[in-house]
């Protein structure tokens, strides 16, 4: 009873949120030319057209593939690097400026480099996603590694656990919340910069289509793509991330 009630109230809240949003949108769109701010019907119409267009699945697949590849690469490389920096001060001191540089260079500049190195290929977008996502994951893991409780490490050391065991049994669980928020950010930004990269160094994918639509002043398509991306992200959040998080952190003291 309790939970079903809560779910109902949640659905209601969400419904209200969406309704308010649509209303505002519809009102604003009515007062602006549609190529500046297309109204909901127009965008849904464009959305429909999009989904049924011949290249839709191809573009979606291309972008998703690139984002996922870049993200997975970033995770595989950023996590161990973050752990390494967290465990060695000398290493950290040496790499700190590199990280600051990585965090300053805009994705457009990475895209320019990527095109030089990889030409027009999937690798260009993957590289840009990687260069954006990797520092995010690395930074968070590193920060998490610095907060691992000395007491717990000493506990593991008292049982003569190997460095690897300490990593797996103490550091990783402690870092997990940090990693999680880093990965979430990295994925979000990976999505976004993939679009930037695709406008420069790809001949398909969502970014390419978005740019095309923008250049043609087809605002309804721009909004339709944006809507699609938001929907996908919400799905990922509600379908994968939230449940996973709830399960992983079930041991946390619920605040009274």
């Amino acid at each position, binding site marked *: 009873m309790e939970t079903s009630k809560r779910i109902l109230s949640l659905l209601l809240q969400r419904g209200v949120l969406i309704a308010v949003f649509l209303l505002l949108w519809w009102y604003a769109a009515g007062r*602006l*030319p*549609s*190529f*500046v701010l297309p109204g909901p019907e127009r965008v849904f119409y464009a959305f429909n057209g999009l989904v049924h267009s011949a290249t839709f699945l191809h573009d979606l697949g291309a972008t998703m593939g690139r984002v996922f590849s870049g993200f997975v690469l970033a995770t595989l490389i950023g996590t161990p690097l973050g752990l390494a920096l967290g465990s060695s001060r000398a290493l950290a001191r040496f790499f700190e400026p590199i990280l600051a540089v990585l965090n300053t260079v805009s994705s457009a500049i990475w895209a320019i480099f990527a*095109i*030089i190195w990889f*030409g*027009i290929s999937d690798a260009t977008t993957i590289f840009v996603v990687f260069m954006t996502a990797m520092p995010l994951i690395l930074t968070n893991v590193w920060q998490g590694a610095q907060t691992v409780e000395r007491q717990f490490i000493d506990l593991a050391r008292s049982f003569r656990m190997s460095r690897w065991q300490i990593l797996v049994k103490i550091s990783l669980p402690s870092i997990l919340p940090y990693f999680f928020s880093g990965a979430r950010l990295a994925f979000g930004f990976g999505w976004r910069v993939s679009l930037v990269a695709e*406008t*420069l*160094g790809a*001949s398909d994918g969502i970014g*390419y289509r978005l*740019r*095309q639509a*923008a*250049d*043609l*002043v*087809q605002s309804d398509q721009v909004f339709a793509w944006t809507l699609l991306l938001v929907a996908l992200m919400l799905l990922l959040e509600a379908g994968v991330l939230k449940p996973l998080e709830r399960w992983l952190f079930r041991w946390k003291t619920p605040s009274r």
Partner: protein
Amino acid sequence: AEKVRIGYWTSGVSLGYGSVLESKDFLAERGIDAEFVHFPDVNAPMRALAAGSIDLAFGAPLAGVFSTAAEGVPVKIFAATQPADVQFVVPEDSSIESLDELRGKKIGMSPAGSSVAVIASAVLAGNYGIGSNDFSLVGGNESRLAQFLVQKQVDGAALRSVTIAQLGDELKVKRLGSFAEEWRKLTDSDSVPYIGVGAVNAGLVDEHPETVARVIAALRDTLAWGEAHPDEVVSILQSSANLPEHDARVYVGQWNAMNRVAFEPEDIETLKRQHQVFADSGLIRGELDDSLFATQPYAQAEQLR
């Protein structure tokens, strides 16, 4: 003096002309109190026009103007200002000798959907039977296209003449043809296609055509002055656009090929034909309404000579 807010794209072909217009006072001499707004994006002037933050734009992208108008935004064209000064090129050592050999090849050009891309597709299809599925279009801005050529990422490209001249030392290319020639062949006329036009808020041109006429006169003055004073134009470009001298000279060398203030019947005819081509390619939607072309100011400007 009448206040007119004028916007233009400052990082593309309209930069040189705009800089000169802004630093000389031809507009003031024609009784126009101009306020300039700079846009780093080619389509931004159209958005600004629609949002009412500027009154008038020159060098506005043609495809953008057509589709904006088709959306019902009250804008009108008062002159053609930028001819498509674009060339088909291949790397110097390429085995490709003529345009019909581009079938099945990768061709770099402004992103799909830009005026340049549509014109290029139209002439390739019309003159050589190379349909849009017979080649693959690689999109990018000028520097990206030049890079792709060097890296052999593309087999050929449609590049602006000014880019080719600017990168002459490092980018060795072979010319296969120009938009002007190919358009002539395609349309059997003497006109050149345009990529940029002057667009104006419909309210302004309907109520005060004489204001627009005076702007047109000033634009014309600027064009003539620039042609006559290339060295001064070079120094203006150097100071206001951060251009190195070499690049500035290249720009000035292309002055007449890049800039125009024309709205004769044959120009309007060309624009209509371009609309047809754009519409056929699916690039823009909607019918062309003749009232889009506001000819009255141009005619009035003739009197202001």
